[in-house]
């Protein structure tokens, strides 16, 4: 209670061993032997991974490492060929995407998926869980859901204002600029009352100014108690805000640890650079022959 | 895997239900003879459907459009040949040159649809769903223009009409039907060779597999698409002449075949030319063999049921890749 939550959380994280698959003090998401193959090719084979509650975890790795595939499997958008995973103590193995979202794990997409012909406000209202009016019979009787709808409009308005999208609330989401769509997708995900956010390359195609703004939002969300896990390529972003980094290569988890240890990790260097750091030796040999 | 299972179901279920109704399950040489005949008829039917449906599958494979007007390409091929061959207003050619001319006309028609409808609408940004509706409009136009020009009376070609059957054991086939079947098989082999050995064929397969990658490696996708439309039109026309030969020429023959074509290409795997061939063959056999137990007027219905079952059990079809279809 007295301790600063940020310090105690990251303090607890820095106390653990930076090994791939290491246990976390308070894991929210736990994966075991999750496997996904595509016609003989192993896209994902993660033996053990735990995501700490209330922290920002970055999932990095070279192209084709299987990060997005892992996201898709865990969030119910792709089926696993093996393994189990649990969220907040309850199994989520094989759960379809909509059930995963209802349990509190909400994901965004690399290419934003705005519902173009719905207005910004409608996009937000859609995301809210537990709406009485979404069932077909109650929908016919307006008084049954009107009050709830008003309350949701109020909450949506607050979120939109927070992301500076307020003035756009009645515009069709399809008319928004790319950056505005990114913000809308984040705001919309929050409307779904997530316990954990899975962000798939949130900074993809985003200009530097907006990147800073998004980073600020994400950090603030973490401070408010949200768990965030994101896939990202931009190392500055990763180093800047993550509390913990997990590295994948060729479908496997090759390293984990606080951001400052990752850059020096030999396994990580190997993953990104392949065998290139062997080449100088080869050319040295050649030079000697000549 | 799926095919033998289906065959097993088809063979046992009716027998069981017939027995349940208290009828005698047919036994003995008569049944075997009928079964053999139905099988032969089915293969014949199936290869003709295969010729017409390959084009449909290739068009879907390259541009992801289900060409609803494909049935009309078939009818137009058959009726154009009829015009050249039989019609009082026509030149009265022998069926063979008339058929060849119909194939050429079919190719031109396919090319005209590509240039006149598909390409301009895509350039205007018309989405795939709306394009699908356009092909429905096109099928309405073509079918009823044929109706006005050809009329409602079914008729046959001038040559090869009445023939005596050759005996194949207890079953029989006319020389005409046998020739058509063999020619159809040759054409199918020719298509396979085209796709595997020629440059344009390889380009077609490349565009079907991954359009962007094909374009990036220098393939002129627009040219490939034009080729596919023309090939589809030509094959459909040929199939129409064949079908008119072994059955009869009517104004809606292609439309009736369209659903069987769909069944065939989905069974075989949407987008795969070889799938279209295999699937169509199975559909033809199923349709004909169903007459062993069920009334003739239901045979198309059985083929369509196969389609629905396939979509339930294995939507990517026999030869399709297990990629997402949903």
């Amino acid at each position: 209670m007295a301790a600063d939550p940020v310090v105690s959380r990251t303090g607890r994280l820095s106390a653990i061993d930076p090994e791939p698959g290491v246990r976390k003090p308070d894991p929210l998401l736990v994966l075991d032997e999750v496997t996904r193959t595509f016609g003989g090719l192993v896209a994902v084979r993660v033996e053990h991974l735990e995501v700490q509650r209330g922290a920002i975890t970055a999932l990095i790795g070279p192209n084709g490492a299987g990060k997005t595939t892992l996201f898709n499997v865990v969030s119910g958008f792709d089926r696993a060929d093996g393994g189990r995973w649990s969220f907040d103590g309850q199994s989520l193995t094989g759960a379809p995407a909509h059930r995963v979202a209802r349990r509190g794990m909400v994901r965004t997409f690399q290419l934003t998926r705005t519902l173009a012909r719905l207005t910004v406000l409608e996009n937000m209202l859609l995301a809210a869980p537990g709406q009485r009016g979404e069932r077909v019979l109650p929908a016919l009787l307006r008084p049954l859901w009107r009050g709830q709808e008003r309350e949701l409009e109020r909450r949506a308005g607050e979120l939109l204002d927070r992301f500076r999208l307020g003035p756009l609330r009645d515009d069709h989401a399809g008319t928004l600029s790319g950056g505005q769509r990114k913000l809308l997708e984040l705001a919309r995900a929050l409307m779904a009352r997530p316990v954990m956010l899975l962000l798939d390359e949130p900074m993809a195609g985003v200009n530097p100014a907006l990147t800073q703004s998004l980073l600020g939002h994400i950090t603030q969300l973490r401070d408010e108690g949200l768990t965030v896990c994101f896939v990202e390529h931009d190392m500055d972003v990763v180093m800047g805000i993550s509390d913990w980094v997990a590295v994948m290569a060729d479908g496997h988890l090759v390293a984990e640890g606080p951001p400052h240890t990752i850059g020096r990790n030999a396994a990580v260097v190997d993953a990104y650079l392949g065998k290139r750091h062997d080449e100088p030796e080869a050319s040295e040999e050649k030079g000697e022959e000549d | 895997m799926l095919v033998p299972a289906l065959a097993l179901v088809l063979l046992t279920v009716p027998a069981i239900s017939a027995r349940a109704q208290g009828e005698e399950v047919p036994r003995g040489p008569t049944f075997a003879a009928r079964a053999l005949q139905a099988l032969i008829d089915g293969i014949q039917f199936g290869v003709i459907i295969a010729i017409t449906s390959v084009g449909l599958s290739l068009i879907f494979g390259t541009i992801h459009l289900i060409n609803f007007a494909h049935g009309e390409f078939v009818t137009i091929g058959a009726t154009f040949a009829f015009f050249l061959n039989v019609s009082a207003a026509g030149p009265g050619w022998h069926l063979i040159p008339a058929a060849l001319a119909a194939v050429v006309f079919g190719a031109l028609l396919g090319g005209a649809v590509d240039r006149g409808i598909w390409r301009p609408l895509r350039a205007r940004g018309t989405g795939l769903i709306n394009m699908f509706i356009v092909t429905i409009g096109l099928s309405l136009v073509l079918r009823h223009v044929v109706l006005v020009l050809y009329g409602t009376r079914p008729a046959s070609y001038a040559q090869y009409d009445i023939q005596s059957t050759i005996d194949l054991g207890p079953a029989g086939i006319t020389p005409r039907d046998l020739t058509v079947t063999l020619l159809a098989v040759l054409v199918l082999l020719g298509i396979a060779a085209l796709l595997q050995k020629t440059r344009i064929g390889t380009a077609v397969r490349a565009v079907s597999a991954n359009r962007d990658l094909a374009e990036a490696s220098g393939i002129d996708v627009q040219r490939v698409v034009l080729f596919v439309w023309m090939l589809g039109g030509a094959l459909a026309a040929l199939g129409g002449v064949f079908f008119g030969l072994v059955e009869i020429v009517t104004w809606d023959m292609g439309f009736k075949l369209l659903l069987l074509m769909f069944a065939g290409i989905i069974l075989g795997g949407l987008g795969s030319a070889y799938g279209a061939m295999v699937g169509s063959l199975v559909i033809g056999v199923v349709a004909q063999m169903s007459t062993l137990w069920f009334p003739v007027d239901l045979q198309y219905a059985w083929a369509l049921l196969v389609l629905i079952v396939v979509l339930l059990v294995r939507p990517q079809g026999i030869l399709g890749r297990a990629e997402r279809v949903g």
Partner: protein
Amino acid sequence: MDFSAILSDALRSGIGPIAAVYALAAMGLNLHFGYTGLLNFGQVGFMLVGGYGLAITVSTYDGPMWLGVLGGIACAIVLALLLGLPTLRLRADYLAITTIAAGETLRLFYRSSWAEPVTGGVFGLQRFANDFYELSPIDPGTYGVWLVRFSSRDLWVMIVGWALVLVVGGLMALLIHSPWGRVIRSVREDEVAARSLGKNVYAYKMQSLVLGGVIGAVAGMMQAIQVQSVNPDNYDPGVTFFLYTLLVLGGAGRILGPVVGSILFWFVLSFLDSALRQAIDAEYISPDLISTSEVGAVRFALVGVALILLVAFRPQGILGSRKEMLLSGR
């Protein structure tokens, strides 16, 4: 050329019982295609089971009309479930093919000699609509104003038909402007996004299919009552194509789109029909080119041309918004 006769025919078609039937069927299709994005090409199949459900109950089994109505609705629900189970998880184009196939398969089964004891086979069923007409408060005779006159029977069907259109339209408006409608529309826009926000897309698609199918079945019943017969050849895929044409014409995804579309569609179709026949009779058009028996075919061909032009130049239809159509990337 007798323009008053042509106009009279056109007006009578535009507001007559058939226009009401098609408006109703198109409203069901609008829920499927316009609002949920389901490419249901088997709407005629729902009309078939509805019409036959009523006819079989009354004609084959001597049941009362209200039971027939319930029977038709029950058949529609079963059909929707059977259709939806395998197909709603598939892509749009697969759904299109399967629903056409299903509609045709149904028609062939109802038409077959196998089913004849129940469905009347090729001949269909008659004499099941008497209860309906006995309910009519309108005295026998013709009624109308100016060029537009209807028999008392047709008038009764029209009144009930358009009343149903009104009721269904009202229900649709309530549903579409509710949170349920919002989820339905999100399924149309991007079902992956909808799932990522916790919506069970499959269940919503199924609900849409059932509701729209029941509406189609009711339309089929009205049509059967109007013609006082059910015949399998009245339920071919051409009907679905007409429905799509008039839906796109009026504006898919608008509550009144099917209504506007149906009225205009039948008005124009009838206008052309009468005008063509008269032109041929008066020899403005040579009978060698088109004979009067071919006018029907010419009509269909013109419908096809209209559909192509509509989709090419005004895909949003009369009531739709071009801006929204551009946003949809259809």
